[in-house]
């Protein structure tokens, strides 16, 4: 048996660990175009902010590959998959200035393959994005390059008010820069939280000196070779030496193109995280899976989903029959001491959803659950987050919560309160740990 894994981040690494719980000896080859891939992508903005030591971002030890008997091909790009011959074509020259091309490729054979190529930042389609001083924030290399020019930067423009844009803004503010964020839509974090939570967060962020402009987009990045500013679609100009683009990500599916592996926005997978091709699996930001709250195939490009999918795919590659319960959008965001966690659908677009809301302005608390037919489809908790995992369990297990609806947003709504629902539930709460807590009831 020879396992090949393309991509060595959250999904790829989890897959290695899962395979090794079942198969201690077979060869595992990991292909990564990043030379030092064992860092946590989520932590690069923390590092940029200077709020953590560099050592904290290496979330697995240097010896990870050796300890797991992995043969790593680092700085190597996979450029094609031959599903008949069961081979991955790789270019050995990625990162050395040479473009991957059929002329300098080699083939790596596989018995089972995992495509965990993740996602790449979307770049703004405006003039000037190629100037010096324009960056996305996706890799440790981006972070190092941004860091290297900070001495010369006074002012920063962040294009996009999503998670990455705001994390970058926070980081650069922490580094003493003058930061302005330009958000095309009406509110920040519109993919993650609802309007009320966004307002609370925006207020906190602005109080700390980051400027946020909603309803404005950049139409050009100005300057000669280097950035001197951005021209906005409201006619005004904003001077800056650094531009961060936070416009979301798109899945790295090129590798599957023309291979026979089915794609939509991402690579399509079954409940076993297998693609339409036998022995080829996919996981993480590149994979489409069933979304529990939406009830349809979707990509949830988040760390926990990538890790869980990598784990399940790894187990199945090693011959298990593990089903993936599906993914759920979720995020934990804290800016300047105001923690916010959102799960599932938070901005329902149709009238079939019902919302229950609790506001406590004095304590800066805002909580909301979104229900459909008595079952929770999503939730947002601001500044009171400790029990949100319990709500997550109710979402995943599709429990009718009508009986506890009146108390669900109270501070005292904790695990104890859902025990009767667990006891009653026939299909849900399969994990042993739930059963153990109701043994004596």
């Amino acid at each position, binding site marked *: 048996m020879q396992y090949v894994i393309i991509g060595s981040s959250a999904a790829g690494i*989890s897959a290695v660990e899962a395979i090794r719980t079942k198969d201690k000896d077979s060869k595992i080859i990991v292909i990564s175009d990043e030379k030092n891939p064992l860092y*946590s992508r*989520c*932590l690069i903005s*923390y590092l940029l902010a200077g*709020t*953590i030591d560099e050592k*904290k*971002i290496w*979330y*697995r030890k240097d010896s990870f590959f050796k300890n797991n008997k992995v043969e790593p091909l680092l700085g190597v790009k996979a450029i094609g998959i031959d599903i008949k011959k069961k081979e991955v074509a790789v270019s050995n020259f990625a990162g050395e200035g040479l473009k991957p091309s059929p002329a300098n490729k080699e083939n790596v054979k596989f018995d089972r393959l995992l495509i965990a190529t993740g996602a790449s930042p979307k770049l703004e389609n405006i003039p000037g994005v190629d100037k010096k001083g324009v960056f996305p924030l996706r890799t440790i290399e981006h972070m190092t390059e941004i860091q290297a020019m900070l001495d010369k930067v006074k002012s920063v423009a962040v294009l996009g008010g999503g998670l990455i844009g705001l994390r970058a803004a926070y980081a650069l503010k922490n580094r003493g820069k003058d930061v302005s964020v330009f958000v095309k839509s009406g509110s920040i974090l519109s993919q993650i939280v609802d309007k009320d939570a966004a307002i609370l967060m925006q207020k906190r962020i602005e109080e700390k000196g980051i400027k946020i402009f909603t309803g404005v987009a950049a139409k050009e990045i100005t300057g000669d070779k280097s950035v001197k500013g951005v021209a906005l679609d409201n006619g005004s100009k904003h001077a800056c030496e650094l531009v961060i683009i936070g416009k979301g990500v798109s899945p790295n599916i090129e590798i599957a193109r023309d291979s026979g592996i089915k794609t939509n926005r991402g690579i399509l997978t079954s409940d076993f995280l297998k693609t339409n091709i036998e022995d080829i699996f996919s996981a993480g930001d590149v994979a489409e899976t069933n979304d529990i709250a939406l009830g349809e195939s979707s990509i949830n490009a988040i*760390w*926990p989903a990538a*890790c*869980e999918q990598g*784990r399940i795919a790894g187990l199945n590659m090693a011959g298990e029959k593990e089903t993936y319960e599906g993914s759920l959008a*979720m*995020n*934990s965001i*804290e800016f300047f*001491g105001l*923690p916010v*966690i959102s*799960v599932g659908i938070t901005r329902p677009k149709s009238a079939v959803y019902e919302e229950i809301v609790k506001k406590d302005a004095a304590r800066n608390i805002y909580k909301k659950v979104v229900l459909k037919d008595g079952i929770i489809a999503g939730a947002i908790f601001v500044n009171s*987050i*400790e*029990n*949100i*995992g*319990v709500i*997550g*369990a109710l979402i*995943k297990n599709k429990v009718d919560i009508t009986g506890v609806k009146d108390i669900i947003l109270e501070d*005292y709504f*904790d*695990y*104890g*309160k859902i*025990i*009767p629902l667990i006891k009653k539930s026939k299909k849900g709460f399969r*994990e*042993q*740990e*739930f059963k*153990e*807590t*109701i*043994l*004596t*009831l």
Partner: protein
Amino acid sequence: MKKIYCNIKKCLGCGSCEIACAVEHSKAKELNSTISENPLPIKRRRAEFVEENVAISTGCQHCDNAACVTACMSGAMYKEAKTGLTQHDRDKCVGCWMCIMTCPFGAITREKQEKQVVKCDLCPDRDKPACVEACPTKALYLGTLKEFKEILK
């Protein structure tokens, strides 16, 4: 694997376990001086009411497939191979609250200032966890699931 089980039939919800836990995880490890510590030590168990007169003392279940470990973006939450326990490494934790977001038992608490989390560690400095010893009705039990089922008989 040994962990703490609660017999709901015996639990009064009195909160003795909570106090014992907080004291055990304080600097002074002794109630009188503990209450003047700043910040106050954090309990890692909660006596939670299920309904009137029915309560359960819960904390980290040291899940086999632990959601907190899967979600942790720094590698701070991990499964200890030898014991099967879910452990937390303060040197790695960045205070991102991903573990809180995913723990279905609500078993993790923030240390806000420190940007750290705490949860049940089964009292590494003791033979028997403080909560188990403190429970006046012996509702809490440290042992394997098999042993727990045995004593229920």
